[in-house]
């Protein structure tokens, strides 16, 4: 029963990882930017929610009403102000700029909030669970975060498939020049894509911060887990990212069930194995880009 439990918890954890990874996947898909500040931005969103919760006494989920729009605005400005410029500076520039941004943000958070571990308090929801059988119970909070992850991934997929803006994004991603000839303003689209990505990052940050404690340095592992979910699932495929998140989550919880020290290492090793035997991921996009 320990193993079944580990696998079930891993699947739920995988939903959360997919939620974290969705923004990274979207930004890479549309702009070919690998946002190295992704993890720190998620932690920044968690701190923002913490501030809202402290100052206004709001529940962390209610604080999303503030945190999501703020992060989306940050994304819009970030793309317009920094990343557009970086994209014109060649292949290395976006990496160097987003890495620099990650270091700056992390140290600003350290300066503002110190290195003490914090946690968002979701009240009784954090501990309540449904008991299935002996030794197997499903917590409401992990279940909720997995459902939200699923909804965000599905929502993004529908947005890209069905809306005019989403189609324009895919067109720009396939051939920027041709899309511009068709009258698409790619810079505006990029800003919208980054805003949406950071909106999902905000949700992810709040869920991450409610699940465990976090500190300004937690952005590093957040980025790494999101990246592993994306690569395991296959670049350019949102459903792949969900599958990748689940594989990573299960690897970590099963590894931790063997020995608590091996949880994260097991996740990394599964990632490396996938890289070795299926470098395009489990569910690669139909067309290699």
């Amino acid at each position, binding site marked *: 029963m320990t193993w079944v439990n580990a696998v079930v918890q891993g699947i739920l954890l995988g939903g959360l990882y997919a939620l974290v990874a969705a923004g990274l996947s979207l930004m*890479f898909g549309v702009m*070919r*930017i*690998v946002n*190295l500040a992704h993890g720190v931005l998620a932690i920044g969103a968690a701190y923002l929610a913490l501030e809202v919760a402290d100052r206004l006494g709001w529940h962390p989920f209610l604080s999303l009403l503030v945190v999501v729009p703020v992060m989306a605005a940050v994304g819009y400005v970030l793309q317009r102000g*920094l990343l557009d*410029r*970086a994209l014109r*500076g*060649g*292949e*290395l*520039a*976006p*990496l*160097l*700029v987003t*890495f*620099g*941004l990650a*270091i*700056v943000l*992390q*140290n*600003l958070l*350290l*300066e503002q909030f110190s290195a003490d571990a914090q946690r968002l308090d979701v009240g009784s929801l954090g501990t309540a669970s449904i008991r299935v059988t002996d030794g197997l119970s499903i917590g409401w909070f992990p279940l909720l975060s997995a459902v939200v992850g699923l909804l965000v991934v599905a929502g993004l997929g529908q947005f890209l498939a069905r809306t005019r803006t989403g189609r324009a994004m895919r067109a720009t991603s396939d051939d920027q020049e041709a899309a511009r000839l068709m009258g698409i303003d790619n810079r505006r689209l990029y800003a919208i894509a980054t805003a949406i990505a950071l909106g999902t990052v905000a949700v992810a940050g709040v869920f991450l911060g409610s699940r465990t404690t976090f500190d300004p340095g937690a952005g*590093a592992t957040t*980025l*790494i887990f999101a*990246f*592993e979910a*994306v*690569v395991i699932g296959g*670049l350019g495929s949102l459903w792949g990212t969900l599958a990748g998140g689940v594989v990573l989550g299960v690897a970590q919880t099963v590894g931790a069930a063997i020995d608590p*020290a091996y949880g*994260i*290492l097991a996740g*990394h*090793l599964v*990632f*490396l194995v996938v*890289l*070795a035997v299926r*470098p395009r991921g489990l569910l690669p996009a139909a067309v290699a880009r």
Partner: protein
Amino acid sequence: MTRVEPAARGAGQDAVPPSAGSGGVRVRRSGPAAWIGGGVLVVAVAVLAYLPYVSSRGTQIDLVGLFSLIVLGTMWNLLAGYGGMVSIGQQAWIGLGGYGLVYLAGTLGLDPFVSIPLAALACGLVAWATSYLAFRLSGGYFAIGTWVIAEVVRLLVIQVDEVGAGSGASLTAFSGIDPQYRIAYVYWVALGVAVVVVLAVYLLMRSRIGLALTAIRDEPTAAGSSGVPVTRAKRLVFVLAAVGCGLAGAVIVANTLRVQPGSIFSVDYSATMIFIVVIGGLGTIEGPIIGAVVYYLLQDGLADLGNWYLVVVGVIAIAVTLLAPKGLWGLTRGRLSVFPTGYRVGRGT
């Protein structure tokens, strides 16, 4: 001496048979700046080599830090500036180099000064093996992939009880040597490593492989179709950069006599390397040296700022990337080249 733009540089290489002197045009590589700058560097190294006889131990320990920064910056520049590979996982090799020294000299009892190059070679071997995984990714995903590899290396190393597991270990192999001599020896080794690494990169970039690397960095597909062995050249760079970072890691541990997994495998090393190279000038040999000196001076000057220090350095690095992508050495606008790797067409007889 002009550092010609890479495209023009390739053309220069074609024109290499230097007797292409029709119409008073001469293709040259070296120039007055190289001779004068080279001379200044030789004198500087000579002065630095003499320093242990006249300076305090604290100064020497400090300067070993500067020499490791030069090595680290030069290696990161070799990867990104010449190989086109952004890595944020070089701390894997820094840590392995440091731990390698502790294991070889401490646990196996080898001579510490022999252990330093051996540890670095081991880094190269592990890097060669992991390159087969890392090279399945490219661009930004390659960058995070190297980071994952560094994390795996760290998580594996802290399972090893012989080197203190999670709490780290002390380097006791020097205990038979008088501290004054030990500090001086480590200082000379560090200086020697810095000189050798910079010269090695210089010679590599002047060779055929250097030309191939520049072509790969600028346009990998075109380089491949022109017959450049793209993957082989990149793998060579990846392995060499690991060896260099391993040397730096071993020197750092020989200097501080202590290795701790949390700090020697810290991603801050990658941040430091990136800042050094970006601020000094990406894709030049002079840039990382200048960047390391600037970083070292800033570090001393801004030490009181605490976390703000990295905020300031990060903002500078972003600004330099966007506004002056050639860094400080770019201010010379290519008029000056102490380490000329390209050719230049000029008037001459």
